[in-house]
């Protein structure tokens, strides 16, 4: 019998299907509408007549909306798509075909990651358009505030979008690992949010473990700081909003860090899913 080989084509087919399924979920549309609403509501800042600093407010709120809703989407969509496959037995139908479990996991990941890319890109473009439009208007009202030309570094706004997408992809990988060994959707979602919180706060442990008095506490805090990725390194939005540019070398290293974790969590999801009984 001909041997079945690992196939990128199959991954592509599964990814495409996952993406289409995700896009057609009501939840995605709902998040897009809410996030757009929040970005659009930054129009209220006009009432305060801040002048040029209004742009900082718009950027902060736009970035905040992207991070918040992107994280929610990354976790909920991943868990939802994973468990709908299991519960609706579509996973059984697929895995009863000549398909490697790793292909299934990679396909799911790429599909959700593509969804997150679409979401992030859409939000980033809309935010950039809004900033550009307000900046142009403000430049006419308050030319003095813009003596040095445009204040918003649009390239950095898109860089921000890219870095957030990578962060969401890590989060998708984390959710996938959790989903691959847990039994319910809700449990996976809750646990993933807890992990997200820890990843955002791990820098506290990271910076503090050497100062702990007890060896045992020190080991525990060290574990906390080492097991979880440091999500604060992706937090470049505040600097972008303040108009401080991000050095290219730093950007490259941040992207490298993100990609390393994307790969690691995918491999761990495959490992954990490999023996899962369906």
């Amino acid at each position, binding site marked *: *019998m001909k041997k*079945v080989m690992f196939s990128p084509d*199959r991954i592509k087919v599964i990814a495409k*299907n996952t993406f289409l399924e995700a896009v057609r979920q009501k939840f995605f549309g709902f998040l897009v509408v809410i996030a757009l609403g929040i970005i659009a509501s930054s129009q209220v800042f006009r009432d305060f007549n801040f002048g040029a600093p209004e742009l900082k407010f718009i950027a902060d709120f736009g970035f905040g909306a992207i991070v918040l809703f992107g994280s929610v989407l990354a976790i909920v969509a991943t868990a939802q798509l994973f468990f709908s496959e299991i519960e609706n*037995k579509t996973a059984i*139908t697929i895995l*009863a075909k*000549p398909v490697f479990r790793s292909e299934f996991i990679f396909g799911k990941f790429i599909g959700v990651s593509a969804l997150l890319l679409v979401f992030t890109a859409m939000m980033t473009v809309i935010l950039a358009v809004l900033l550009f439009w307000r900046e142009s208007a403000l430049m006419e009202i308050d030319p003095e505030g813009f003596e040095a030309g445009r204040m918003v570094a649009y390239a950095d706004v898109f860089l921000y979008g890219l870095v957030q997408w990578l962060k969401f992809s890590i989060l998708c990988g984390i959710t996938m690992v959790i989903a691959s060994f847990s039994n319910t959707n809700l449990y996976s979602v809750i646990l993933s949010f807890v992990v997200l919180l820890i990843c955002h706060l791990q820098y506290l442990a990271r910076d503090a473990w050497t100062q702990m008095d007890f060896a045992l506490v020190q080991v525990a805090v060290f574990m906390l700081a080492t097991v979880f990725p440091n999500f604060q390194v992706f937090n470049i939005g505040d600097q972008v909003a303040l108009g401080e540019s991000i050095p290219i070398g730093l950007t490259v290293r941040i992207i490298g860090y993100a990609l390393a974790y994307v790969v690691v969590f995918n491999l761990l999801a495959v490992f954990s899913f490999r023996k899962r009984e*369906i």
Partner: protein
Amino acid sequence: MTPAIKIENLTKDFPLGFGHLKLRAVENLSLDIADNQVFGLLGPNGSGKSTTIKVILGLLAPTSGSCQIFGTPSGDVSSRRDVGFLPEAPYFYRYLTGYELVAFFGRICQVEEKRLHDRVSEVIEWVGLKEAAHRRVGTYSKGMLQRIGLAQALVHDPRLVILDEPTAGVDPVGSAEISSLILNLKDQGKTIILCSHLLGQVEDICDRIAILNRGKLILEGELSDLVSKKDLRSLVVQNYREDFNEELASWLKAREARLVHVEQPQYSLDRVFLEHVGRSELAREKLSERAEAAMESKSRPDGGRTE
């Protein structure tokens, strides 16, 4: 010749929560399923049928023992190249059309892109969904879902087809159509494993059956050997009168035979339903001979039996 499926001493345990408690779903099962037949896998709920099928499909790893498909261990992804599977109560991606769904699975099975369109159209037509091919699966009835499920199981032209409750929730007309499709598959030289609670259907189409209970194989053999009473015959007579009984009995007694019972034969409700509602000529034709036979056998649970 390699059997389609060879199961040897298969045991499957499921851990129950923490601790070391285990549920034994299948115990020491050995089964050979030869090529080109319709094989019925029967048993009450919880008897280990589904577990056995999942082991065959490589979805579960055996606790001990082994399972081979056409000689390849079932844990090996390659073993599934020649297997088509229709899960129980299939639920597919609802937003895809029937055509897209079958094409999706065709691509998963690496049906060549240039042959894909023809092959997908072929199997969809074959299961009788040509008209509905470009409707979303979400709008399909249960019977249509089973048929599109059958189409996706066949898209890569497997030699072995495993059908888990293919007629659950399907009306008798649809059910009869699916039965005729299964017989068609056998004619094409495929091996079919049928899991069903509808014993009437199993009886109609299976060549061999195995019955599982509490994880153990309790009966296996040719269907005809298991169900027919070889020393009995029934006669169907027009214008029969009750006063014939005595004379007939003595006539038979003289030839060392015995009249067991006389009863009015009945058509099966299935057949009456199909003849009146019959939406598909195909199903009626295909099943007519068998229905005829079924009518006879079902009419004699107690009567019409003569010796």
